[in-house]
């Protein structure tokens, strides 16, 4: 901040513009940060609790038959569901105990990249005025569909 003030004195017109822009950026940045944090932190807590009460196991059991349709072993549902609830780092962690072929890693990565961190990112989507829940459902379906289509296309080459 002290530096900005110095600049403003050195060159009044250019410096005051600089100072005004920096201050506006700081103000908007902090306001946006606070706006998002208010929603993301409770969403993060909800995701952690869901994981603790065994939601991953239940959802993975439901998703396992779908996995086989899109060219993945049923057990790949576990990292995918971890990703839905938590994030991509959880996907990578949960992938480690499985032995997947390079093709299966790519398909799982594709599905997870489209649908991950649904609760926290759903909160961000909600903040823009859209439905976080509807977009969460869309992302799950679209992630599985994209992996299924990629699996078919890979079979052609």
């Amino acid at each position: 901040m002290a530096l900005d003030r110095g600049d403003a004195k050195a060159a009044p017109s250019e410096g005051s513009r600089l100072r005004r822009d920096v201050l506006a950026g700081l103000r908007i940045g902090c306001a946006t940060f606070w706006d998002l944090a208010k929603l993301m932190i409770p969403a993060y807590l909800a995701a952690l609790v869901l994981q603790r009460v065994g939601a991953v196991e239940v959802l993975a059991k439901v998703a396992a038959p779908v996995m086989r349709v899109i060219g993945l072993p049923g057990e790949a549902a576990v990292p995918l569901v971890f990703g839905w609830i938590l994030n991509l780092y959880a996907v990578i962690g949960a992938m480690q105990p499985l032995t997947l072929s390079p093709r299966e890693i790519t398909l799982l990565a594709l599905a997870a990249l489209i649908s991950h961190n649904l609760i926290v990112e759903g909160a961000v989507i909600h903040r823009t005025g859209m439905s976080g829940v509807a977009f969460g459902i869309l992302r799950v379906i679209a992630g599985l569909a994209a992996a299924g289509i990629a699996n078919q296309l890979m079979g052609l080459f």
Partner: protein
Amino acid sequence: MDLLREFATGSWSLLWKMFAIVVPMMVLLELFEGSRAYRGMVRGWSRIVGWLGFSEQTAAPTLIGFLFGLVYGGGIIVRDAKRHDLGRRQVFLMALFLSMVHAMIEDSLILIAVGASAFWIVVFRTGWAAAVTLALGMAATAWVRWRRRKGRG
């Protein structure tokens, strides 16, 4: 107790990462938004995504989200939706595109690092996001028109 500890450390790193990116990015945006280079970049990008239905004003937050992530792009969406009154259709298109593909740099790299194919997760995924945006954008337009017609009749 274990849950609380994980929540505390996780929240701290989430908040810190968000703060360290959102605040400097907003300052940089305020500083460079008026510059010729920034405008040129946004205009180029808006030409690429224009055929998906994005306006030039919506193209900028979409580009930030595409490269750096939904949280950062989302922050700018929230700001610009307020500032420019982007309209529901533009925000819907952005949410569609960014929900399919965002944080192209960080997210792709961490999965390429564990062995995923760059072609499928970068090229195919971007094409997929464009297709979904186009298809659902058109479906939403048709739905809104149909509702309006039904409302009148």
